[in-house]
């Protein structure tokens, strides 16, 4: 028969995580952290549109240098993000296997969704695309691995960004990935509240609208950078540190 979550400390955490609701709560909290990061990251990216300082340094390079000058903060944030990604990813895979394989082994001959959004039905696929995109993006513009980005130069954020996105295939891939991210967040932002049990007939509809707006903002904000490079609006001349 059924078991109950009793005991303390680790056992309690383990049995909480064992439950589907616990896993969703973990996904909501880690999703919230990742969403916060995405917002800050976008604000950082948009500095690409700022004019070069009088001393010839681009604000984006200055920003990058500032971040690198604070290793405890930078690495603290990176560790938190890494843990959040791992937890979010593992819980998603576990739940998805339960939902797609075990809970309904025999599929419908006909199944017609009537109210659900495209975003809500494709969370796992969107999530996987984002996951692989992030790995690529880290190799491409953070680590600057030679086999992904041969023109990469450590510390030259603006220059790396522009030269990296001048390849149309790469720029289009970035835009597609960020549209997928926006779709993921369209459902994800309000969904984390529901998973944590925060719902109210008056506020939930507003929350859904806010999450749609934020998804658009993030989608447009992130896509604007590769688009600007691709169209030549943002050019190489800007930054030398």
């Amino acid at each position, binding site marked *: 028969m*059924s078991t*109950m979550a009793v005991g303390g400390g680790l056992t309690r955490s383990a049995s909480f995580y064992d439950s589907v*609701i616990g896993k969703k709560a973990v996904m909501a909290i880690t999703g919230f952290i990742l969403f916060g990061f995405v917002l800050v990251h976008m604000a950082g990216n948009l500095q690409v549109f700022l004019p070069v300082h009088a001393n010839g340094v681009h604000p984006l390079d200055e920003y990058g240098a500032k971040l690198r000058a604070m290793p405890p903060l930078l690495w603290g944030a990176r560790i938190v993000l890494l843990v959040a990604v791992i937890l979010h990813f593992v819980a998603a895979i576990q739940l998805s296997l339960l939902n797609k394989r075990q809970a*309904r082994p025999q599929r419908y001959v006909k199944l017609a*969704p009537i109210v659900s959004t495209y975003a*809500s039905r494709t969370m796992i696929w969107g999530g996987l695309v984002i996951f692989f995109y992030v790995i690529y993006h880290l190799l491409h513009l953070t680590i600057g691995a030679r086999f992904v980005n041969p023109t990469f130069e450590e510390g030259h954020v603006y220059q790396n960004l522009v030269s990296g996105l001048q390849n149309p295939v790469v720029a289009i891939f970035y835009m597609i990935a960020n549209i997928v991210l926006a779709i993921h967040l369209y459902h994800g932002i309000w969904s984390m509240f529901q998973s944590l049990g925060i719902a109210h007939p008056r506020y939930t509809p507003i929350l859904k609208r806010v999450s749609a707006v934020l998804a658009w903002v993030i989608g447009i904000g992130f896509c604007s950078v590769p688009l600007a490079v691709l169209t030549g609006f943002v050019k190489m001349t800007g930054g030398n540190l």
Partner: protein
Amino acid sequence: MKLVLNIWRQKNQNSRGGMVRYELDGVNEHMSFLEMLDVLNEQLTEKGEDPVTFEHDCREGICGCCGFMINGVAHGPHRGTTVCQLHMRHFRDGEELWLEPWRAAAFPVLKDLLVDRAAFDRIIAAGGFISVNTGSAQDANTIAVQKHCAELAMDAAACIGCGACVAACPNASASLFVGAKISHLALLPQGQPERSRRALNMVAQMQQEVFGSCTNIGECEAVCPKGVKLENIARMNREYIKAAWAYREEAAAGGGG
């Protein structure tokens, strides 16, 4: 009116089953969907064929026995209705319909459109009850209940356990059902003594029956014949999360309870 029916026929739990096509003439638009199937079954019986098995009891939309998929939608195209209360006037003459049983690992198909929903009963047995002394009932007004709590509890209690939420959910999750049952009792003073244990045990049982998890998609709410709201799932999450961290065994040694 005339209909083309593609119906899932399956001999028993272990056979494979498949869609079988029937043409049915002389359907009256005032018939309920089940009455239409009665007509088909009469014809099948006369021909010496096996009639289509489907579950039904009250035919008033209150018992929760009936239900199957019509064209991929649980309880068919009309919102807030069980199939027994769905009338043929909602369909076009000559329309082709696809009838399928609920599909979930926890709801094995017993025959044709009939599934075994005992998993729901086991979830209820795990915690969907309150403990009271039997004997003469106390006066109805001795326990004060706030009006909005009574109303929310009543809305949740409208659930008839038909299983449409599970059927419509892409994850075959029973969250709307369990959420409704947990909410119904958690909102009332009578439900307080077992509140934590109820949330923990019913969710654990739901998982043991291999229902999927909720991804906040909302198909369940859309097909629910009783209009049970998604808000009940949030309440279940809330109740479970709270109980999972705050629950203390009554027999725990030391300290206050």
